[in-house]
């Protein structure tokens, strides 16, 4: 496994596109984290003018809510980590280096594993950005800071990782299946933005909650705010355990399908 990481490290570390994409993603996601509260309070301020009740400001960054809030909003941008994975899987086909890797002694399963590791490390880095941003924002914005508060609800960090990882694996499978970067990106986007949302509309909730992207989204429910509580709307304040299982199932399924593809195909 260390050997595989070593091999793949060179493929990305000296690739400018990789760094540009990764940096763009990090800058974007950190901006989202740091400006989300201001953004939301604009709506709250707007609501204040129309509602006769006293509406409290959105307490977005205080521990322990910060983990849930950041994880929820960060999840919208998983298409970007998926994009990075698709690009680097299909690159191996356009350069035909998958051929070269295998003929030089990489097993077909090893090749797949190297890309699973890549998706995993990418998702871990993204989760680390969440951890660092959350710590900074939480420490600055929590009025009565207690140590135990920091570690409450850190399950959302793991859920965030799972969300990104399973989506990256879907992206990886599409890359292996279609082998062409443009086509794969378009198909991933179509599935993410169009195909599954339509399916979710058409199918009853009981069924649609088993769909991959839907279950990834359901892992982390909409965060409750004081505003919502006032209107008696209550969302799940914990990571949804059934969805953890569904997402894990899909992750295993994507890797398994990719393995079957790779095992039987010519390069």
């Amino acid at each position: 496994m260390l050997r595989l990481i070593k091999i793949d490290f060179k493929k990305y570390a000296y690739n400018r596109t990789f760094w540009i994409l990764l940096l763009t993603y990090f800058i974007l996601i950190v901006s989202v984290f740091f400006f989300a509260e201001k953004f939301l309070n604009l709506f709250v301020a707007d609501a204040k003018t129309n509602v006769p009740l006293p509406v409290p400001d959105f307490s977005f960054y205080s521990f322990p809510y910060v983990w849930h809030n950041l994880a929820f909003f960060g999840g919208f941008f998983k298409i970007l980590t998926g994009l990075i994975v698709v690009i680097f899987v299909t690159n191996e086909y356009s350069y035909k280096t998958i051929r070269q890797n295998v003929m030089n002694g990489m097993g077909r399963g090893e090749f797949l594993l190297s890309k699973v590791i890549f998706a995993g490390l990418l998702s871990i880095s993204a989760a680390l950005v969440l951890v660092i941003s959350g710590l900074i924002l939480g420490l600055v914005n929590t009025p009565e800071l207690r140590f135990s508060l920091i570690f409450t609800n850190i399950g959302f960090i793991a859920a965030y990782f799972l969300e990104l990882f399973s989506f990256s694996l879907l992206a990886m499978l599409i890359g292996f299946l279609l082998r062409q970067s443009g086509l794969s990106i378009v198909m991933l986007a179509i599935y993410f933005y169009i195909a599954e949302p339509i399916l979710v509309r058409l199918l009853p909730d009981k069924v649609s909650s088993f769909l991959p992207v839907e279950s990834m989204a359901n892992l982390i429910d909409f965060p409750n705010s004081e505003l919502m509580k006032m209107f008696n709307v209550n969302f799940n304040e914990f990571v949804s355990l059934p969805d953890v299982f569904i997402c894990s199932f899909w992750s295993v399924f994507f890797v398994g399908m990719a393995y079957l593809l790779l095992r039987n195909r010519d390069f």
Partner: protein
Amino acid sequence: MKNQVLEIRNLRKSYGSLLALDDFSLQVNKGEVFGILGPNGSGKTTTLGILLDIIKPDSGQYAWFGARPFSNQRARIGALLEQPLFYPYLSAVKNLEIIADIKNVAYGEIDELLEKVGLTGRKHSKFKTYSLGMKQRLAIAASLIGKPEVLILDEPTNGLDPRSIAEIRELIIDIASRGITVLLASHLLDEVQKICSHVAILDRGKLLHTGRVDEVLNSSPMLELQADDMRALHLALQHSGVVDEIVSEGPIWLVRMNKETGPAEVNKMLTQQGIYLTHLAQRHKSLEKHFLELVAENHA
């Protein structure tokens, strides 16, 4: 059998309705320089691709070093397939390091290999800035990483200028002289004739002939003979009893001797009869001719 490096049994591969490889079997022993000779599209790359696990056969087996194929074995095999395949944005050195990592060997020999193929001056340039010849040289260097016991080369001189072709052939001959087994696919007859000890002739996915190159060459030697008195020469040859066929070709007689008689015996016999040769030369039936005959038969 310790000596057997590769055994191929009844490989078959089709692409849709096209049968690219039809019941192909072959044995390669240690130290042989085995040429797979065939016109374009005859199935050479398909065969080598199967041996390297990048193409899955429909049926049939092969064994490397007497064992069923598994990925680690390929660390003992160096290969260059069809075209050089590298990461365009990485330098030659980094590309070779990746291959060394895949084969699980140290980077120590990389500089030496780059020197050998004449790329030292450009070793830190990105692969995409290389000319075709440089790319091919890098591919040769890559195939030598990890001191392979077997070298697989698919059209290694394709698209190169004459000087590079000569250099690369020299290099292959040099490699082969160190006891490394070589499997070379080529559509160029003279390449196989110059480099290989053994040849398998392939056409439309069928193995037409296999054997030692010199056996194929020497299957029917012809002698070119000339003397001052051509009529007396003809008469003497006709009555010698060792000649199968005499053909006139311009100023000379082209003579096919029976198997046991070499040029020395012919010369001696004629001298004893007072006929002194002004020209004596041996003409091999070229591999090309043999090859074309076999291919023509296969198409008939």
